[in-house]
Structures are given as C-alpha cells and as structure tokens.
C-alpha cells in the first residue's frame, strides 16, 4: 500500500494480462503524453541558450540557434538582485515550512486524542475554516491595517502556516498509527503529554510530517500571490514575484513606445537581449524545484496514500 511497485492489476496472474497491441498502444500513448509534459520547458531552455537576434527573426525554437550564453551572462551582470531574491524565497520557504510543520502537528495531536473531551470542538474550529471565509478584502485589511505587516516577510509566511486540510490529514494519521495503549502505558510510566508527543508520536509519524513539509515547501516556494498583495517595496522580492514583475514590465515596455523612448533618452539600454534573458530567468527560477522534484515525488506518493484516508 505504501509504494507503487508492489503489484498491478495483472500482477501475479499471467492469464489476466492485456493483449500485445493494447499494451503497445498504452505505451505509445504515455510516451506522447510524457513528451508533452517536458516539451514546454525544453522550449524555454532552448530560447535561453539562443542568440537574441535569431530569436527575434525566427521566433522560439526547440533547438537553440546560434547557441550562446549571452542571456546568462547578462543575468550575471545583475546577479545581486537574483541572489537577493533567492535569499528571500529561501528564507520564506525554510522558515515557513518549519513553522508550519511544527504548528500543524502541535494542533493535530490533541484533537487526535480520544480522551481529550474538547477534541471535537477544536476539530470543528479548524474544519470550519475550510467552509467559510470573510473574503479577500477583510483578510487583507487584517494584515495591512491591524497587524501592519505590509512589506514584511511575515506577510509572506503567516497566511500559509496553518492549513486546515493538513491538520485534518495529520490528525487522521496520528489516530491510525499510534496505538492508544502505547500512549496509556507511557502515561503510567510518568511521561507528560509533551514528552509523549515528542518521544513517541512524532517518531512514528515521520511519513506524514515529511509529506506536509514537502507540500508546504512547494507552496511557499511557488507563492507569488502574497507578494502581489503585500509587497510594494522593491527590497522583498521573491524569485516568483521577480518573474512576475519581469513579465509585467516587459509587457509594459513592448506595448508602450513612449516608455521605450523615455528609456533611450535617459541613456538606458534598449538593446539588451530581452527575450532570451527573460527565458533564462525562468530557467533560473525553475531550477531548484525541477532538480528536487523527482526526490519529492517519491514521498508525495506515500503521503498521498496517507491523504486518501478520510479526515
């Protein structure tokens, strides 16, 4: 149940297998589909390694024409901004994920305990947030006017820490994997609740902790919405938001000839390799996730199996 390689429908029974041609069709189908999942990224990668001039004349191609590294060299010139954005993204992701796993687990444990009489109220307290919301405006005002967190990293971290969904998944996991008898005997031996939680429950629950950590890492790393809402200051720009701003700025420049003229007059560069640089930036932004994801995926599958148990 925990891994996918255990068995298939046909499995041990050789009579119960698909005919040769059906099997071939399925194989061909998946080769095509898998290709469709990779090709868009290859297009971007190819453009980033292309010469700006040939991209301008021939458009985006899957094979880089006049292979060169001009775009990456250009990015290196302004490396400080990129390094800084990476720093912001990493900080938010690491702090956010750690806090998130700790706080979710701390909340999920008491509501998983059968002998805690208030468990059902606190379960409802978190479940209700999945059903109702005050909407974007009041939520925004709480962060900006009440807590005054505009332009701070906390505005990028706090909104995503508590996730009702993961609280309920974790609660189910605690309930199913940690036998009540073990908790009882630990209690008789004189262990306090916190001690039981740290020494017994957490070590038994590593799969679900890993899953929540991985999903939260992904959520934090890929978030741009919170930046869009709360970040106006150029200092706190994460990688994703940097990509977003780049898209918006270039769109603005290309749709606005006056702005172009303005820049030239001010002595700015008009001939920088905009197309290839943009795509090189995407490659830089995608980088860590793409390298990490095959590793992530293994755990995701295990975690999703956990997740398919009703909360």
């Amino acid at each position, binding site marked *: 149940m925990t891994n996918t390689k255990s068995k298939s429908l046909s499995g041990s029974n050789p009579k119960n297998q698909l005919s040769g041609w059906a099997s071939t069709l399925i194989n061909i189908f998946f080769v095509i589909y898998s290709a469709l999942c990779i090709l*868009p990224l290859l297009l971007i990668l190819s453009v980033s390694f292309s010469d700006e001039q040939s991209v301008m004349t021939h458009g985006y191609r899957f094979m880089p024409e006049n292979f060169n590294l001009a775009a990456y060299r250009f990015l290196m010139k302004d490396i400080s901004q990129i390094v800084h954005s990476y720093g912001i993204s990493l900080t938010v992701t690491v702090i956010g994920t750690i806090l998130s796993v700790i706080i979710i687990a701390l909340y999920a444990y008491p509501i998983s305990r059968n002998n805690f009489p208030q468990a059902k109220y606190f379960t409802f307290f978190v479940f209700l947030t999945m*059903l109702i919301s*005050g909407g974007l405006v009041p939520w925004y005002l709480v962060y900006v006017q009440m807590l005054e967190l505009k332009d701070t990293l906390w505005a990028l971290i*706090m909104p995503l820490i508590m996730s009702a969904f993961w609280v309920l998944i974790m609660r189910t996991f605690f309930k199913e994997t940690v036998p009540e008898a073990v908790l009882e005997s630990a209690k008789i031996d004189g262990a306090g*609740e916190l001690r039981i939680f740290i020494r017994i429950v957490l070590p038994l629950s590593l799969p679900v902790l890993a899953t929540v950590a991985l999903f939260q890492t992904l959520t934090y790393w890929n978030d*741009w919405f919170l930046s869009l809402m709360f970040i106006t200051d150029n200092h706190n720009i994460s990688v994703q938001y940097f990509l977003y701003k780049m898209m918006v700025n270039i769109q603005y420049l290309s749709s606005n000839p006056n702005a172009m003229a303005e820049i030239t007059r001010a002595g700015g560069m008009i001939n920088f390799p905009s197309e290839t640089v943009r795509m090189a930036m995407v490659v830089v932004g995608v980088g860590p996730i793409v390298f990490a994801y095959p590793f992530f995926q293994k755990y995701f599958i295990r975690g999703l199996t956990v997740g398919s148990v009703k909360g």
Partner: protein
Amino acid sequence: MPLPTNRKPIRTVRNFSIVKNLRTYWMFYAMMLPGIVLLVINNYIPLFGIVIAFKTINYQDGILGSPWTGMKNFEYLFASKDSYIIIRNTLLYNSLFIVLNMALPLGFALMLNEMKNRFLSKLHQTIMFLPYFLSMIVISYLVYGFMSDERGYFNGTLLPALGLDSVRWYFTKEVWPIVLPIINTWKNMGYYTVVYMAAIIGIDEEYYEAATIDGANKWQQIKKITIPLIMPVLTIMTLLQVGRIFNADFGLFFQVPRESGALFPVTNVIDTYVYRTFLTVGDIGLSSAAGLFQSVVGFILVFVSNWVVRRFNRENALF
C-alpha cells in the same frame, strides 16, 4: 416545562469543571495555542470584516465609523453586466475542471496500472508530475512561449508549417475556453493520477484472481471491482472540488492570460474580479460584496453536495 430553580449551583459546578479541565489538559491547550492564534488571525477576524460589504468605507472614519448602505453594494454588483459574466465563467470552468480532474486521471491511472514494465510506469508518473511543481508564473511563461504574437512557437513555426495564418492568441477570446482547461488538466494530471493510482494499488489482489477464475474480462473487472472500490477516494476528491466551485484558481485566470483586457469576457472569474475591484479600482465595498457572495454561495454548495453524497452513501460524505 419547569425551569431549574437552582441555577446558581449548576453554574458553579460548571465553572469548577472548566478549571478542572484546564488543569488536566493545559498542555493540550498550550500545544494548540499557536495554531488557534493563526486561525483567528487568518480566518476568524476576517469574518467580522463582512460588514464592509454593507458599508460605504471612507478611511477617515474607519471601518466601524463608516456609514451603512444596506444592500447598495449588492444591488450595484448584480445590476452590472460583470456579475453575470464572472458567475458564469467561474461555474462553467470549475464544473469542467472537476469532470476533467476525475475522468482523465482515472483513465490514466487504470492504464498505467496495466503497464507491464514497472520502470516505465514509474518513469511516466514522475514525468507527468513535473507540471504540478511549477508555479503559475512559470506556467504563464511557458504558455507565452507557445502563444506570443510574433515569436511564439505556434505563430512562428507551427502555423506557417501547416500553411495557416498566425493568430493573435492574447486577443482572440474564442480559444481561451479551450486553452485554460488544457493548462489546468496538464498541471494537475500527475497529482490526481497518483492519488487514484495509490487507491487502485491498495485493492486486494484476490478480488481480481477470483474474477479471472469466473471468466471476467478486463473491462468487467474495472467496472465491477476497481471503480466501486476506489469510489470513496473519487467521491472525496470530487467533493473537495465541488466545495470550492465558486473559488477559481486565481493564478490560472490572472497570470496565464496576462491580464489581456480583450480576454476578460472569457477569463474574468469571481476571484480576479474581487482582486481587480479592490486593488486596481479601489472599490472596497463592491469587492467585499462580491467576496461575501462568493463565500455564502460556496458554503451552501458544500452543504448541498455533502448532503447529496450522504443520501447515497454515508461513508463517503465529508462530514
């Protein structure tokens, strides 16, 4: 019905039990405290903010001091042509997404499960999962790579090769009701396939062995064994989406069409409307009204769909 005459003692007993409860379980409360604080900040305080929808906000008087306007904001919202468009778009897209997110990954999972070569099956799963890890910003760049006017792959290479004229994709609203579902499916396929795959693998092999002995073919096995046994997972995954049918994927509708005004008739959904009326136009009242409408209808939909599922099978319901 006689009321209890000695109310005071009861209350004392209850107070006593609260103290006792706190004394026994104080560690549990302490553990939950950070979570409770965050839920209050993120979810419960904003609930009080729904009064904004019934007010004309001016910053001088603050939220509480601003004058009430009753249902004015709602009247204005529903009188505008926008309301019809955003509700229609949100519902149609999300309904389509729910169907696609169920049917296609289920088919994929069934086929992958039949694949004899386990290594290939795993490899395909891994590759299919890739889009799920990309942010909507990155996806908007990928789409741009194919669909931009002058240099996009479609206009630059594919269409000329087929002898067709180029299309100004970001100004042609007819194509987006097809493009957006394709992108959504492409992004989420890996995730849902793996969820269904995990459920299928959990099924006991003996069912299939018994079925083959009775002479059931593949199709009969899928219909009579696989589908019924993964029904709980299918229902819950679908129910979770139905509950959010009034909440569109903001990133998909905001980033991918690159805010092209020409596309608004087919890309504007409640979420993007709320965002734009609030942060771009600055109409707090109208935006809140739309947001409140979204929450209330969403809430009702969750309850109705859950009730329907309960009627068929109590076990599969969310609550």
